[in-house]
């Protein structure tokens, strides 16, 4: 890194996890839950061992808690918010929520410069592409988006209320002990991550619990749970169909490019055998002229942090520095309209 390279802060504040760090880093230095206690404590210690309620900062969007999270973020990163530009990944459902956050950032947190860009575009950039079909399997929802030349095509974007967290449920029964709901979910999530697989290997999988006992589950049982991502029901088509819908609704020119640049991101993409299953399922259903090709990240870790990494690199490019929205620009030119103008989407 050059000594004259300006460092900025990059944040990906998701519904379950928040990841923040600095440009140039390939790993977010601060990773926490997007939740806090009633007394504004953050982190799994406070959340898992407290007696009070655990509050969600997003879902629904809570501006006061969000402001606290932002301030905590700068504190944890060890820097003054006044001195650092912030690139925030845009996963906001409404313009209104984004508007509120920009206001908080400039007026209360007092950052000097701001930029925002869709999660899908950042995941695309971090795979070294500017055009891709992104499947982002989040905690509580899954979003499929087409990104073309860095622009996320919102018209064809599809979101479904199924995500990684729903796969925790069948493992809750194995969590015994006096824990609060948050901690129980964390433990169930751990078991899920230790057991879940799409691979047709041994017929029985085992997992050792902290107390030394073992859980034994049949392959068939695990497949049934894992298949929730692919099966359709009343309000969900299956991730493969989300991607297909976008492919079929896209103009012919980019159909083929999207098919040959499918990127799956989000922790659930790391379930053993998932990528193979996605490739096979999608290939079987794709239109004839489209050859389905999954693009891999250099490491599995990237799937948790692809949005952060994309932001880290994007905001470190010298050509990007002219794109920041400065505080005075925001204040002098009708506030939110400048964000809409300078941040494509």
């Amino acid at each position, binding site marked *: 890194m050059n000594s004259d390279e300006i460092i900025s802060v990059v944040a990906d504040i998701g519904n379950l996890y928040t990841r923040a760090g600095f440009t140039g880093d390939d790993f977010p230095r601060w990773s926490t839950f997007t939740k806090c206690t009633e007394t504004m404590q953050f982190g799994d210690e406070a959340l898992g061992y407290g007696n009070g309620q655990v509050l969600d900062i997003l879902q629904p969007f809570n501006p006061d808690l969000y402001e606290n999270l932002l301030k905590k973020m700068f504190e944890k990163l060890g820097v003054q918010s006044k001195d650092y530009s912030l690139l925030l990944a845009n996963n906001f459902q409404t313009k209104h929520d984004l508007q509120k956050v920009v206001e908080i950032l400039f007026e209360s947190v007092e950052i000097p410069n701001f930029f925002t860009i869709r999660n899908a575009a950042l995941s695309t950039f*971090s795979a*070294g592409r500017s055009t891709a079909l992104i499947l982002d399997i989040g905690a509580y929802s899954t979003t499929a988006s087409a990104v073309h030349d860095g622009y996320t095509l919102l018209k064809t974007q599809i979101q479904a209320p199924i995500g990684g967290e729903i796969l925790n449920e069948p493992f809750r029964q194995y969590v015994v002990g006096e824990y609060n709901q948050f901690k129980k979910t964390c433990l169930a999530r751990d078991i899920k991550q230790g057991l879940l697989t799409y691979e047709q290997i041994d017929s029985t999988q085992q997992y050792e619990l902290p107390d030394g006992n073992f859980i034994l589950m049949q392959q068939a049982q695990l497949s049934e749970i894992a298949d929730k991502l692919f099966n359709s029901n009343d309000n969900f088509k299956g991730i493969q169909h989300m991607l297909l819908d976008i492919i079929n609704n896209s103009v012919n020119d980019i159909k083929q490019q999207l098919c040959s640049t499918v990127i799956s991101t989000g922790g659930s993409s790391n379930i053993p055998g998932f990528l193979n299953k996605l490739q096979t399922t999608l290939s079987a259903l794709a239109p004839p002229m489209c050859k389905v090709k999954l693009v891999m990240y250099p490491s599995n870790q990237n799937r948790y942090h692809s949005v952060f990494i994309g932001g880290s690199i994007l905001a470190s490019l010298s050509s990007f520095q002219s794109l920041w929205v400065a505080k005075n620009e925001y204040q002098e030119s009708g506030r939110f309209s400048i964000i809409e103008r300078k941040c494509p989407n």
Partner: protein
Amino acid sequence: MNVGTNVSDDCVTEFNNLKLGKQYRYVIYKLDKDKNEIVVDHKGERDSTYAEFVSHLQNESRYAVYDYHAQTDDVPPRQVEKLVFIFWSPDTNQPVKQKMAYAAGKEALKKKLNGLSKEIQANEPSEVEETEIKKIVLN
């Protein structure tokens, strides 16, 4: 999304020499990291072969414009000439930052080159084989 990467004047000049002056078969561009600018890397003579062009696409990303001529399968065959923009982004050991700088700089270059008919994004040698270009040009 245009992140404002600079494009040297040379890039446009040589593009026009290809397009209008018919001096070259292809022009290859690269990103000059120090100057953060897209510059001309190679120019191929008018009688260059496609194989010569591809030999320049190695382990680092590149942009290219190729003036491709093809014949349709009609009777009698029609001559088709198209300017193809090729974004070469190999999945090799290139640092992610470099790969991304190229991906982000693409729009800035394309904006300056008027008259491009088709675009290919290629991440491995098979995607930039002559058969692929021919398919795109004839569609």
